[in-house]
Each structure stands twice: as C-alpha cells, then as structure tokens.
C-alpha cells in the first residue's frame, strides 16, 4: 500500500514538473532528398542553428525529411501533430507539399509556416489558411521586379524558357500577365526539364524569335544549361534568371557564361553590399555569419534563409503566446497563431515581416533587390 502511494506521488510530481516546464515542440518537414534537395539541404542545416530557448522555454526541433514527395509531407505532418504533439509545423520546402499540408494543420488547429514560394499557400486567407503563413517572396513580387528592370532598360520583346513543372508554369503565368500589362511582347515560350542533357532545340527556337531579352525560369544549377547553350549559339541580348538560382553552386557551374546575368533576389544574397541604413542588413548578416561558421565560407544560400525566417517569426511570436497559455495545449497553438498574425516590422534575412489578417506573408518591396552577376560574384544593382 505504501509502495503504491509513493509511486503515485512520484508520478504526480513528475507530471507536475512536466507541466511547469513544458517545452515548445517545433515540427519541421523539409525536402532534404529528392528533386528539391538543393533547396531542402540548406534549410535542414539551418534548423540546427536556431535558438534552443525562446522566452525562457526550451525549444525542441523535430526535423523530418519528406523526400520532395507530397504524400510523405502529409504523413510527416500527421505524425508531428499526433505523436510529437508539436505546437507549430515549419515546412515544407516545395509548394505542392505545403499546399497538401494545409488541410492537416487546419484540422488540428496547428499553425504552420511554409518555406515554399507559391502565393496560393497563403492566399486568400480563409478558414483553413488562417493557420498558414509563409516566408519566401511571392513570384509576382519577383516578376514585377524583373519587368520593371526590363522596361527601364529599353527591352521591348522577351522570350521565356522555364522548367516543365510547377515552377516554370507558375512563373510563366505570373510573368506573362504582368508583361502583358506593361506592354512587353512575349515572343517565345519554351520548356525544359531539370535533368535534360541538351536544350539545343529550345534555344534555337528562342534565338530565332530574336528577343531583346530572355528570361530563364529554373532553380539551382539546372538553370545554367539554357544559359550556356544560349551563349554557345551566340545570343548576345540580355539574360534574366529568377531568384531560384541564387546559390553559389550556380556560379560554379555556369562560370563565365553567366557574366552580366540579371536576377531578382532576397537582400540576403548581397547582404554585405546593402546600405548600413537598410534594416534587413543586420539580420541577414547575422544569419550568414551563423551559417558560414557551421558550414564553411560561401556555403550560405537564400533557400536556407527562408528557413531562418520561419525561426525569426516563431521567435517573435512565441513570447506573446507564452503569456497566454502553456506549450502543448490547444490554447497555446491558437495564441501562437494570433501572435504570428500580429507580427509587426520584424526584420528577417529576406525582408521585414508585417503580418495582418489578410496578409500571411508580410513582405513588402524591401524584400527584393536586383542583382547582377559580375566577375563570378553577385553584385547589387543600385
């Protein structure tokens, strides 16, 4: 009898202790393998650098890999919510995965911050998407930047070549609609695959259309292939890339064929060249320093910075939520969601976040800059 009472007492004490020091559990699903691995790997590395305490509470990160696969992302999310009882889900890397996860997080009332670009993840904010936030700039913001630059430098006709997948299609949709409004003429529209060994056919067709400029919408090193082929066939007009190529591997693979290429990107890419008055500079350099200390000089990429920004948002919102409820409860998750929606002027690596009930991205014009490749390095275009 005595033994049983003491067991109960010990259990009770353990339970009480657990409740008093409830850790914040953060569930992460990233595409560290599969086709999106070049984005997912730096993101995964970034989560290892995130703060381990927020507002005095310990933070546990549970990082899972979804292999760039939609089904795996949904499965991961269910597991994180039901087994690990996470307070927030961060992820996933690509848009199809993030879109599929919305139903799961909304059903359980868990806030989620995505690292994928598609505007459809957070727009329009409805009953389900009120739980969902994201950190990367919308493609529309980026394509407006490109088109502004094009019209300012006298480009009249433009040709498009993009990935034969959601990325390329999304860009074409955005780009063609804005181009139409700005009286830019699209003279050719081609597709290629990430794994293609040759794009000669497409490139010949692009050149035959004689455009003033060509936009290549691809991500990572695969976007170098059309550019190299264009140079090989003697194309001399302007070449634009998208922010999907903003990592140093692209410079390595593309080499001298990429001299002069223009692209829009998050300010983190050229953080050290930003004016000191720019509020993004400090937070971007903080991330770069941390990442490069862990993974070597020149290893940082803008994709990892999107992951970093999810952490920035969490760190800004969690203290507010902690005032209202204990982690691990439904009240805490709701409070965390509300706090995320009220984030004001929080500097991240990619821009300044100001959320509202209708805007779950919260980035403005300060979140993009035009960059040119000069002497094998990224150079801010002023």
């Amino acid at each position: 009898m005595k033994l049983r009472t003491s067991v109960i007492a010990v259990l009770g004490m353990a339970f009480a202790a657990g409740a008093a020091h409830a850790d914040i559990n953060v569930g992460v699903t990233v595409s560290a393998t599969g086709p999106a691995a070049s984005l997912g790997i730096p993101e995964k590395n970034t989560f290892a650098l995130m703060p381990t305490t927020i507002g005095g509470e310990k933070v546990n990160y549970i990082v899972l890999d979804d292999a760039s696969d939609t089904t795996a992302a949904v499965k991961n999310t269910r597991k994180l919510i039901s087994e690990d009882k996470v307070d927030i889900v961060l992820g996933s890397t690509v848009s199809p995965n993030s879109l599929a996860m919305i139903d799961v997080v909304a059903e359980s009332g868990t806030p989620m911050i995505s690292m994928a670009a598609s505007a459809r993840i957070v727009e329009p904010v409805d009953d389900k998407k009120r739980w969902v936030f994201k950190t990367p700039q919308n493609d529309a913001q980026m394509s407006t930047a490109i088109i502004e630059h094009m019209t300012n430098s006298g480009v009249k006709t433009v040709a498009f070549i993009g990935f034969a997948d959601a990325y390329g299609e999304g860009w074409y949709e955005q780009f063609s609609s804005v181009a139409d409004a700005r009286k830019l003429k699209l003279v050719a529209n081609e597709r290629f695959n990430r794994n293609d060994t040759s794009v000669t056919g497409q490139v010949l067709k692009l050149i035959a259309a004689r455009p003033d400029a060509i936009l290549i919408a691809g991500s990572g090193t695969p976007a170098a292939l059309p550019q190299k082929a264009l140079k090989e066939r003697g194309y001399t007009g302007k070449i634009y890339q998208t922010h999907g190529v903003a990592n140093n591997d692209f410079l390595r693979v593309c080499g001298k064929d990429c001299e002069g290429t223009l692209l829009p990107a998050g300010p983190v890419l050229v953080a050290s060249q930003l004016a000191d008055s720019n509020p993004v500079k400090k937070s971007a350099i903080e991330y770069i320093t941390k990442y490069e200390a862990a993974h070597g000089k020149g290893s940082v990429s803008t994709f990892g910075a999107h992951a970093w920004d999810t952490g920035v948002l969490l760190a800004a919102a969690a203290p507010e939520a902690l005032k209202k409820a204990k982690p691990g409860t439904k009240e805490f998750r709701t409070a965390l969601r509300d706090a995320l929606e009220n984030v004001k002027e929080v500097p991240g690596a990619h821009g300044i976040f100001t959320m509202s009930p209708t805007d779950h991205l919260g980035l403005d014009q300060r979140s993009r800059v035009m960059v040119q490749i000069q002497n094998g390095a990224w150079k801010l275009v002023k």
Partner: protein
Amino acid sequence: MDFQIAMLLGQDGITNGAIYALLALALVLVFAVTRVIFIPQGEFVSYGALTLVMIQAGAIPATVWLLLGAGLLAAALDVRLALRAGQPGRLVRLLGWYVAYPLALVALLYTLPVKDFPMAAQILFALAVVVPMGPLMYRLIYQPIAAAPVLVLLIVSVAVHVAMVGLGLLFFGAEGSRTPPFSEARFEMGPVMVSGQTIWVVVSSLVLIVALYQFFERTLYGKALRATAINRVGARLMGISPALAGRLTFFLAALIGALSGVLIAPITTIYYDTGFLIGLKGFVAAIVGGLASYPMAAAGALLVGLLEAFSSFWASAHKEVIVFTLIIPVLLWRSLRGRHVEEEE
C-alpha cells in the same frame, strides 16, 4: 525551320544518340548474359562523371569509400567460402582484389597530386574507382540470386537503383557539376560549327562499339559471354563459369556507363540522379532491339536521340512524353511481328 537548324538539331541528336547507344548496348549485354534488366546502368554515368569532378576539384572521391566497403563485404563472403572449401591458396588473390586494390587507390589519391594531372590520367583514376563497382555489385547482389526469375531480378534492380541514387546524393550533393571539355577545338562543317567535344563523343562511342565487337568475336572471354547469352546451361556444361560471365558482364556495363558519363560531363550538367533518365532512354533504345539485337539497339538509340532533339524544338513541353511514347508503337510492332516464346527455361 531551315537547313541550318535541322543540321544543328541533327548534330545534337546524334551526340545524345551515341551515348544512348552505348547504354543500350550495355543493357542488352547484361540482359542477354544474366537476364537482369539493369536499371542501375544509368547510375554509373553519374558516378563516373561526378567522381571525375571530385578528382578534378582535388577532393578524395567519396565513391572510393563505397568501393572499399563493398570490397570488404565481398572479401568477408568469399574468404569464408574459400576456407570452407579448403582452398586457402585463393585467399591472397581475393584479398588482393577486394581489399588491397581499393586501399591502394585511396593511398594513391591521397598522396599523388591528382588534381594537377593531365585530364587523361584523371579519367583513368575515375574509371579505376567506379568500374570495379560493377563486378562487386554482381558478386554481392546478383550472384546469390542468379537463378531467380526475371521478375525478382528486376525488382532487385529497382532496389539497387534507389539505393545508388540515395548514395549519390550523399556523395555528390544535390547540385550538378560539369567538367572542362577534352578539346576546345571547333570545326566548320558546311553552315554548322561542330564542337570538338561532340566529335569526341561520337568517335569514342564508335571506337567502343567496334572494340566490343572485336572482344565478342575474337577473344575467348568474349566468346564465353556470347555462349552464356545463347544457352546458359550449355555454356555451363562446356566449363564456362556463370559467376565469371556475370562479373565480366557487369564489368563491361560499369565501364560503358562510367565512360559515357565522362564523355558527356563537359557538354551538360550532371546531377547525382541524371543517370537514371539517360539510362531510361538507353532502355527505350534497347527495347527497339528487343533486348537482344545489338545493331537494332544502336539504331534505336540514334532514333531516340534524333526524336528527342527535334521534339525539343517543336514541342519542348512534351519532349519526354514523345520520346517515351515511342515505346508503345515499338512494342506493338515487335509483338505483332515476333513469335511468342514463353519465358523461363
């Protein structure tokens, strides 16, 4: 479309077709001798190219550790067998090939300034690392199930492919790489400039095909492989070891794959998973040859290459669809024309 564009596309198609032809030949060879539909064939392309990239960057190619690991495993298996069979004399040779060879490679890569070697030497090193994985793969994976039905062998091939792609991501990272071209030379052929690398690819493929032909026609080992392909049981009765035939076949397949990778690495960016798609196109070509005829497979490869080049011009978004849909009329034609032989002996 004018003549010049047609010429450029034709050139592009022939270059890619030459690579597909090599892979198609390897696939036909492996299937004929061992009945394995060798899906991981393409992985040797990536491994070969990316190992060369790592050597040129002055790093120790991660693939050499895979070679060492597989060698140790094979040694453990074979040493046990040799001891049980009471043939300790074989130990030296076994350990020499399985353990000492990879160790020697590691030592050489560590001590020699391979980074500054001429390209030909670097290519030899890359091949020395990647090619022995072929026979090792046969020893470890396919030899124990050599008598299994074709379907089981196919399923195992899929598993090996998935494992190799995963290891490739671990070894080489997610981003692609290129190597410098063998020659910067350019030649004018009528209205079209032809790059030296294109000629390298086409000529090397032709040389390799002729060399393979000579190997099968003139050498004892080549004839042994042919005999195994025609009649496995008969060849065994004549004293041809099926294990040896299998290892030799996989050696050739790995050699062809790695060499293809080295050849195309200067023309295109190679990723850890590039090989699969290239191998798959070689597979379409091999199907044109009914997985049996070498000349038909080579012709099919050329067809695939040209079809790919021209469809990328006319309908770039549907290029892969067009290339892989080719397999349907081909299969239809083959099955209407050919007589049906029930599978399995």
